[in-house]
């Protein structure tokens, strides 16, 4: 009897520590640990990371900084916490790519670039973070040039990537956005084909300016070479914007009060005060009647 209790207790301890061990040690191979991002982290990579995160990670990891991750064992944890921020970029990349236990592997789901943009997003919650860039000595970085046009027959933005000398750049990654007042609307992320061309669909219903122009932003990346384009393309729906304070509304200035309100207010005022004034003037008649 006594013996079996001791055995059980030992077994229980063993199990617990096994679980604890498993939770603690997630070994990342040296080479992977030191891997550096192929992207330079900026607002755009963060934005893209955020979109992916919201779709694919939030359900378990919760909103970063809020510590509202799903309770499970092992715990997913908050990606803004030190547990994450103390790791190298390469380690985060590796863990997202490979997964472990309940943490799914995203190797087949996302391209390397997308995983790096997730890392970029996770890093955006660390104000002290400074991206470590690879040593680029001896590597030839291509000079990229963007050629932008719009094909209105198929509603597509056509982006061609070449080198300075107009040599076609295949397999360059291209991202396109529409610039809004408060943020960017991503049109997508594509690789150029063998002709160095990537297409982006633009919904023609997207409201442009009065002539249908949209502010377009395009970025490309290949082997640490980058290029950027910002300009107007006539691809949207011509829209005449009305100011919210134009016309007569409840929220307008005094001079632009709604007509019906002016009428009702004044009618009631004049009606009631008319009677009051009639009575006040009528008071003089008392003297005549004496």
């Amino acid at each position, binding site marked *: 009897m006594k013996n079996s209790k001791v055995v059980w207790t030992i077994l229980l301890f063993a199990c617990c520590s096994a679980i604890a061990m498993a939770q603690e040690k997630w070994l990342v191979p040296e080479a992977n640990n030191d891997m550096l991002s192929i992207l330079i982290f900026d607002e755009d990579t963060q934005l893209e990371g955020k979109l992916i995160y919201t779709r694919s990670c939030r359900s378990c990891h919760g909103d970063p900084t809020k510590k509202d991750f799903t309770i499970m064992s092992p715990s997913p944890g908050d990606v803004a916490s030190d547990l994450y921020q103390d790791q190298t970029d390469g380690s985060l990349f590796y863990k997202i790519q490979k997964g472990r236990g309940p943490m799914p592997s995203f190797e087949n789901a996302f391209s390397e670039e997308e995983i790096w943009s997730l890392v970029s997003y996770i890093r955006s919650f660390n104000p002290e973070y400074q991206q470590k860039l690879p040593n680029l000595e001896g590597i030839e970085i291509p000079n990229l040039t963007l050629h932008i046009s719009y094909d209105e027959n198929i509603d597509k933005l056509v982006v061609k990537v070449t080198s300075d000398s107009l040599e076609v750049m295949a397999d360059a990654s291209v991202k396109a956005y529409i610039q809004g007042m408060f943020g960017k609307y991503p049109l997508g992320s594509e690789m150029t084909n063998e002709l160095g061309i990537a297409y982006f669909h633009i919904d023609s219903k997207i409201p442009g300016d009065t002539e249908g122009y949209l502010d377009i932003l395009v970025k490309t990346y290949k082997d640490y070479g980058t290029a950027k384009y910002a300009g107007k393309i006539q691809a949207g729906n011509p829209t005449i914007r009305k100011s919210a304070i134009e016309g007569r509304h409840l929220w307008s200035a*005094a001079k632009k009060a709604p007509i019906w309100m002016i009428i009702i207010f004044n009618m009631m005022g004049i009606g009631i005060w008319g009677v*009051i004034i009639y009575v006040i003037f009528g008071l003089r008649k008392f003297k005549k009647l004496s």
Partner: protein
Amino acid sequence: MESLKKKDLALIELELLSHVNWSRKSVIWLGTLVFLFAICIYFYFQQLKHGLGVTGLNDYVSWGIYISNFVFFVAASLIGMLISSIMGLIGVKWILPISRIAEIIALSFAMVAGLIIITDMGRPDRLHHLFIYGRIQSPIVWDITVVITYVVLSFLLLYLPLIPDMILCKDKCSQIPPFQRKMYKILSLGWTNTTGQYQLMKRFMKILMVLIIPVALAIHTVTSWLFALTLRAGWDSAIFGPYFVSGAFVAGSAAVIIAMFFYRNSFKLKDYITHVHFDKMGKLLVMVALVYVYFNINEIIVPAYKLKGGEAEHLKSMLAGSDSIMFWTVQLGGLIIPFALLVIKRMRRPLPLTIISVIILVAAWFKRYLIVVPIQEHPYYPIQNVPEELMHYSPTIAEIAITAGPFILLLIIITVLSKLFPVIPIWEIKENLEHEK
């Protein structure tokens, strides 16, 4: 009226004019009030000098006891005019001796209500901006308009039937200073008691009595809209208008009963304001309290069943949280229990009825506080890291003094009015008695 039938008309005149003088007692009373009011004025000057910072108002609770007090004063001013005008139009005779008292209460509360808003202003020197830059889309502009209209209308309704009595004061009162006699003469507009004059006065009265009904309902409806036309949970309610109006009936009736009691005792009017009047006013109070209970049930049960968002938070703190003690004291002690007691006939005798009315009136004040303040202690939008002190409001000494000021001013106005004029319409009583003979 029965007790009066035996009385000689001359005696009635004498008795009803007996309080129109500046007796020692009344002067001491007025002096005390003025002294107390001066203290409040001192605090108001502090506020003028240092700004609203001397109050407990903050970013969140920007409407504190000043606005609660304003709502209370508007509420108390409402019923007086309605009692005298509706009953007068229907031709209810018993109301006659207390109609002027009701009007004095109404006018005094309404006059002071307008001033209270000014105490809530950080820059009262810019008051006229309201008239220059005010937007008619704003309920505040409607409220100012309708309060001013109501004050003028109730002034006229009080003034017109006073004219014959002023002539009487001028001729019969012996202990009044000459300037007062002169004032009566000017204010009586050459009145000589001719039938033509009476006919004209009654015609004007009828017009004004009809007109005051919608305006009286409007003052409190529009005051409720100051709250209900916002999107804030707890104020955003479609029944706020009738809810406020029915609450005003309760507060106003209680105020009239208290005034009746004091006039009856200190002006020796026991033969004029009788047990019958208290009994009837008590019944009226029961009726209006019932209506108010009905609106309270609606105002609370409907959102409490759904418990959506901000409303849930507010209701929970009201029904079972930080404000629950005040809430249940007011609802039970200031509405349900008094109402239940008033159903008993013995409780409608002058003294018990007056005590109950005082309790109801005090509870009515706290009810306004509950409507105005606790809702603002919750942030309008979900906000993080709100400084703790913004979530709570407690009035400062200066603020309490500035809130007491209107009450003292109210007593001063009521005292002066009832020392200048007979509080019971003498000519109407006489006319009525002659008619019955």
